[in-house]
């Protein structure tokens, strides 16, 4: 464990010594838009349409583009690469880079310097003079032509020397710090609106290099009907399932077309003037210039009726047809459906999965230099995986590392961690005697293989599997340390993870699974078994929250929610056999909907359900003792009954015991979208669990109010085995009973056998033998 922590800390702090590359770091950026009217676009601000400007300035701090900590470069040759992105439809007019650095005062002024590169072009080489060691501000104007749309990169390369002879390349006085909070990239961007063409989708509506938060209005003619809401959900999930999605706010707009990019839904029955939607011939997708804003575009999804609208939205969302030009009619296109647990992003459990299927490029698994940093594989998994009696998924890791006398093989190792929890270590060993025997002496690298089990408790819905090569230099004498060049270590993309032995079983309610994976709705990736239940006339806040959740779900699954059903108003017949997601306010408590929910409406305010009297015996038999705190205390109960109530809760569906219900409710429904966004806030990490989560000023606080139950399918004998494995005393009793019970007939049989064998002798002699042990 100690080593794991060291490894993870090292991986965060120490960086490449020569030519390393990190895998993509996605981070949320906060770009101050100085020209925009308001910072956050909330439901209430829908009435004031923001005024677009053609140019805007932005300041990207290093922290906002993903550099989490101060950059610390060490050694004779330390380098860090910082990737960042620029929107495809914007170009840089002016740029300057501002760095706030400090470095070791022991550096030789004439030999040490910092090289700054942007997209591999050297911008400046800054000498590191001794007198500025405490702090140096570097401001460099950057030629805007260097910047590219899409991926860009800043590299900072540190060359340091502290003596002219006999230098230790990893000496502790070779260091340099670059602040991540006080270093910025100042950009002046100009929008270059591209030709409106469906081919470019999802741009310009969604660009993964967007540095700000995405605000995309969904425009309807009037209050949207159920069909329209469903179609809107599909489209929200289309954005959500796009690569690089980091959250968005889709506010519904019903009165006119705002400036900026937007998505319009219209049926023949509800045409919007000026968009050429008078002669609709079938499900149609079109892209037009925004009549109210020349530099923006509108995506129009239309049909003659609700069905066709949904078809168009579904085709768009699932990318089932090639879209090009400015208008496409998409009838007669099949929309794929999903069976349970078939979400594209979820790692497969029907066969071993090769790492090559989980990484973006083979470079992700190759480390250059002696400190390659962690090689990461990211993957998502179904949230209800149950591995017992195995300890967890199994990994078959094939790995390569260099072979040379400079490598201290005893102290070097390959550490594997999942979600920053240590899993296992693979040895960096010698060539085997077989290799030597077969004369493979000349190889430069060694290929090794190890099979390991990942403990299932480290598994999360979203996983970061990291392989950290901890290569140590063998001790050399003074003045002989030379860093090896071109050191490459890698994990074979052929390595695999095997979850074939997993079952699906979850202990519900568990809001952590909802917040982290959309469970239980995302069990079927296109939400084929789910119904969204909203008020008869849903508020804008509820609709925005709904759209946000749809996008969120599809970012978990990678599939669009093309089979979701929306219901305005409660119709019990249609709610049987479905999982319910309830979004709205107190008026939803009619029809006793919230009867068994953790919180319900008593006419004036929300009240907490009484603590259930679940018997200990029941908990013992079903292993449903809660391990989450607890019943809410007085202060919290007060929040519940206040008008500031915002809550997320889960319980069994009132219409169908074999399905579940999750409700997102607030007295003031305008707060609902923010609540959804709060799931991702750092302070709420791991705070959402149990069956009642309240959004308070101090963050989200969770409780277990109702009783627990299990959902999933596991063969009964496995369940019995699992239960027994948690109750060893029962196992002892059972073993003893088996022995005691079985001993009786065995004893009888043996006695009968003895009688049979000794039938010729008198019974008196025989009976002597019965109870005595000789």
């Amino acid at each position, binding site marked *: 464990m100690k080593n794991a922590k060291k490894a993870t800390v090292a991986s965060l702090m120490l960086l490449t010594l020569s030519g390393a590359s990190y895998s993509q770091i996605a981070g949320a950026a906060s770009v101050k838009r100085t020209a925009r009217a308001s910072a956050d676009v909330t439901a209430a601000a829908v009435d004031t349409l923001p005024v677009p400007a053609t140019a805007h300035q932005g300041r990207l701090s290093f922290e906002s583009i993903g550099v989490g900590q101060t950059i610390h470069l060490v050694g004779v040759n330390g380098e860090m690469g910082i990737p960042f992105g620029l929107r495809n439809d914007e170009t840089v007019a002016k740029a300057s880079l501002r760095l706030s650095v400090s470095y070791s005062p022991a550096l030789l002024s004439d030999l040490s310097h910092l090289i700054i590169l942007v997209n591999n072009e050297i911008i400046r080489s800054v000498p590191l003079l001794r007198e500025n060691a405490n702090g140096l501000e570097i401001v460099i104007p950057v030629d805007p032509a260097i910047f590219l749309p899409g991926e860009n990169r800043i590299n900072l390369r540190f060359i340091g020397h502290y003596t002219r002879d006999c230098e230790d390349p990893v000496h502790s006085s070779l260091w340099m710090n670059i602040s991540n909070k006080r270093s910025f990239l100042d950009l002046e961007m100009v929008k270059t609106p591209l030709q409106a063409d469906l081919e470019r989708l999802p741009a310009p509506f969604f660009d993964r290099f967007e540095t700000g938060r995405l605000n995309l209005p969904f425009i309807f003619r009037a209050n949207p009907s159920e069909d329209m809401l469903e179609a809107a959900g599909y489209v929200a999930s289309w954005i959500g399932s796009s690569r690089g999605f980091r959250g968005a706010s889709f506010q519904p707009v019903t009165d006119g077309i705002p400036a900026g990019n937007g998505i319009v839904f219209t049926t023949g029955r509800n045409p919007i003037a000026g968009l050429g939607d008078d002669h609709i011939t079938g499900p149609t997708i079109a892209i037009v210039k925004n009549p109210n804003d020349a530099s923006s575009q509108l995506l129009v999804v239309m049909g003659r009726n609700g069905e066709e609208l949904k078809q168009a939205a579904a085709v768009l969302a699932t990318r089932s047809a090639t879209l090009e030009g400015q208008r496409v009619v998409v009838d007669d296109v099949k929309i794929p459906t999903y069976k349970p647990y078939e979400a594209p992003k979820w790692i497969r459990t029907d066969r071993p999965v090769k790492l090559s299927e989980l990484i973006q490029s083979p470079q992700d698994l190759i480390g250059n230099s002696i400190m390659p940093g962690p090689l990461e594989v990211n993957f998502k998994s179904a949230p209800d995986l149950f591995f017992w009696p195995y300890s967890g998924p199994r990994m078959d890791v094939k790995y390569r590392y260099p072979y040379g006398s400079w490598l201290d093989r005893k102290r070097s190792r390959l550490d594997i961690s999942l979600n920053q929890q240590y899993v296992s270590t693979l040895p960096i060993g010698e060539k085997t005697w077989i290799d030597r025997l077969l004369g493979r002496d000349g190889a430069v690298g060694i290929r090794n293989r190890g099979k390991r089990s990942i403990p299932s408790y480290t598994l999360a819905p979203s996983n970061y599997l990291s392989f950290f090569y901890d290569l140590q230099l063998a001790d050399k004498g003074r003045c002989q340390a030379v860093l090896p060049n071109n050191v490459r270590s890698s994990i074979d993309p052929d390595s695999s993870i095997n979850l074939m032995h997993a079952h699906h079983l979850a202990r519900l309610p568990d809001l952590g699974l909802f917040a982290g994976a959309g469970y239980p709705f995302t069990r079927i990736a296109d939400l084929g078994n789910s119904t969204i239940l909203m008020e008869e006339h849903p508020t804008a806040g509820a609709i925005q929250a709904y759209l946000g959740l749809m996008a969120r779900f599809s970012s978990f699954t990678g599939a669009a929610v093309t089979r979701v059903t929306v219901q305005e108003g409660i119709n019990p017949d249609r709610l049987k056999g479905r999982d319910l997601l309830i979004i709205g306010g107190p008026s939803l408590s009619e029809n006793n909907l919230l009867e068994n929910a953790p919180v319900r409406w008593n006419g004036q305010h929300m009240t907490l359900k009484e603590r259930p009297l679940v018997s200990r015996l029941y908990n013992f038999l079903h292993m449903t003792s809660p391990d989450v705190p607890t019943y809410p205390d007085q202060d919290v109960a007060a929040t519940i009954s206040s008008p500031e109530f915002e809550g997320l809760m889960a319980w069994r569906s009132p219409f169908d015991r074999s399905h579940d219900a999750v409700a997102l409710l607030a007295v003031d429904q305008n707060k609902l979208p923010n609540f959804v966004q709060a799931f991702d806030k750092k302070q709420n990490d791991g705070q959402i669990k149990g069956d009642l989560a309240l959004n308070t000023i101090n963050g989200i606080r969770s409780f277990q109010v109702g009783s627990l139950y299990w959902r999933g399918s596991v063969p009964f004998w496995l369940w019995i*085995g699992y239960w027994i494995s948690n109750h060893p005393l029962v196992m002892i009793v*059972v073993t003893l009973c088996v022995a005691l019970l079985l*001993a009786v007939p*065995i004893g009888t049989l043996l006695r009968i*056998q003895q009688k049979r064998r*000794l039938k010729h*002798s008198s019974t008196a002699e025989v009976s002597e033998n019965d109870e005595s*042990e000789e």
Partner: protein
Amino acid sequence: MLRKSRIKINKLLSEAKYILEHVWDSFLQWPLVFLIAAAAIMVISVPLPLYYQWVYGVFFMGLTLLIDRNPSHYASIVICLSSILTSTRYIFWRITQTLRFDHIMDAIFGSILFMAELYAWAILILGLFQILWPMQRPVIPLSGKDEDLPTIDVFIPTFNESMEIVRNTVFAAMGMDYPKDRFKVYLLDDGNREEFRIFAEQAGCNYLTRTDNLNAKAGNLNAALKKTSGELVCIFDCDHVPTRAFLQLTVGWLQKEPNLALVQTPHFFYSPDPIQKNVPGGSELPGDNELFYGTVQRGNDLWDATFFCGSCAILRRAALEENDGFSGETVTEDAHTALRIQRRGWDTAYINIRLSAGLATDTLLAHIKQRARWARGMTQILRVDNPLWGKGLTIAQRLCYMNALLHYQFALPRVIFLISPLAFILFNSSIIHSSAVMVFAYAIPHLFMSLWAHERLSSGRRQPFWGEINETLLAFHLIKPTLITIFNPKKGKFNVTDKGERSEDDYFDLRSVRPHLITTAFLFLGLVVGTIKLIYADYFHIQSSVLVLNILWASFNFIILLASVAVANESRQVRNTVRFPFQIPFSAYFDDGHVIDSVTDNISLGGLAFSLPKNYELADRDITEISMKVDNRSFALPVKIVSRSGALVRLQFETASMSEQKKLVAALMGQADAWQHYGPEEKPVSTIASMKHILKIIFGLLRYRPQKRINKKAAIKNEKGAVQK
């Protein structure tokens, strides 16, 4: 307090038994069977996390200790079943969780170790089944008038043994209590010696010989069968002296059960075997054969699977003739003959009364050679006439025979267990893919309970750990015979065991224990290396818990090996004959006519010792004669004083006439109960006491000063001149 708890447990257990008996009798019987099967599967297969497994193991060991206080059969069966469940659970865990290897070297070592463990588990289960209920067969007296008693031929086969030994057997055989006209004693001399022929004539027994020596002992017997005609055939090895009651006590069963083909009696040794002789404190140890004859054969008898052991048994000629005589294809022709006879549907029986006594193997070397022959023979049977298949046997018989045959395969697994800990200590090879504490948690209950169950069922006939020492002693030498025979059953000749050789000197039989010493050296090296690695654990990057486990294991092996090396410490055999600590009343006649009545302190076939009465003056007189009673009739023997120390006088018998010799043999070794209480008391010894004893032996060995010559010549001499066994 302890006694109260014992009474409580007895009560609890018998009440439980009572209730459960009724449960089984009720309608719940069949559902109960399924439930038990399901529960057993669950108990065996459900893995527990580490802490829970410890709880389970410790609790269960405690429960076993509690139940053990109850001496009933029921408690024995409960303990056996618990042991079987625990050990099967261990094996299941081994199979499912620990057989994953990174390196090919690990895979090889690990699989080998696992095979050995699987063997040990199979033997454990079969063994427990076999000795679960040792039957005590009562004696049936002879029935009918003398004229109706069956005719018996007593065969005494010999090859190259000395006259001194064979003589006693012949005398005793002729003196058995049975109508003289209904039995004949035959001396079967395969060595065709004139001396023996003359002796047979003088003694009055029949003498048979043959021109060739085909098939060694089996051929000898078969040739005799052709020339004789008694209904029953009784066989004694030439050094096994029967008591007078032998025929009286065994023939009854053969009369009552016409389907009975064999009545076997124990091979009892009045001389100490090499372990008892060479090891300090060895006279307190039960003989090596005690467990087999005292418990295992009785267990076999319950299932009608007693097999012929070559001597001290009586067989039905009809059965032998059906089998075309004794089967000579294997070198353990006795067991094979029994197997083949049983295949034809005959029954066998075992009577656990010591009705004869013989000489144990003298030296370690002889002992090893004898066991090597047995191992080879049993393996031959395994290959040539496997009891698992083929017709004629019940399932229980098959299992019992298989256990006997499989037992002799212990050599390779035993060696594997001995050197396994070195794989990790010296080669860093992880042969069990699991954390050390987890292995402890599973293996300790398994080892503890199998030890406990075995101890309980063997009740004192073998002390704890001596089974391991025995097997270790023989293991290295038995590998070659067993392995070669498995692949080629026809190979290997019948080498004969030496009996009655005298060693003139104390010596250390280095040659026999050379492999043991080499392995001990390796283990010692391993212990040293392991300790160093443990102290500098960080530098070596080794998990110390795994290292500790292996070091403990290696230490245990080290102790066992050293104890077995101690057996090679051969001591001089000064006397020709064995001294019996019998107290026999006799009269001593002085040369001046005085007579005193006394009781012997000890007596052998060569002389006796007694203590003079208090204040009795011996002066310069000599004792010329002693007289003893046999059958209420006295007989006299010429003697002379050989030594005297204080009141203890030692007399030596002078040459006596044949009839006098006969009577002496009858008096000493012919009494019906001569051997029932001979030898160390069979009381169970605790594990700790046994280990203390073993450690004492080892320290004695380590203080061994090289005064004794390592006598290679003596060792070689023993190889020549084989004696037919």
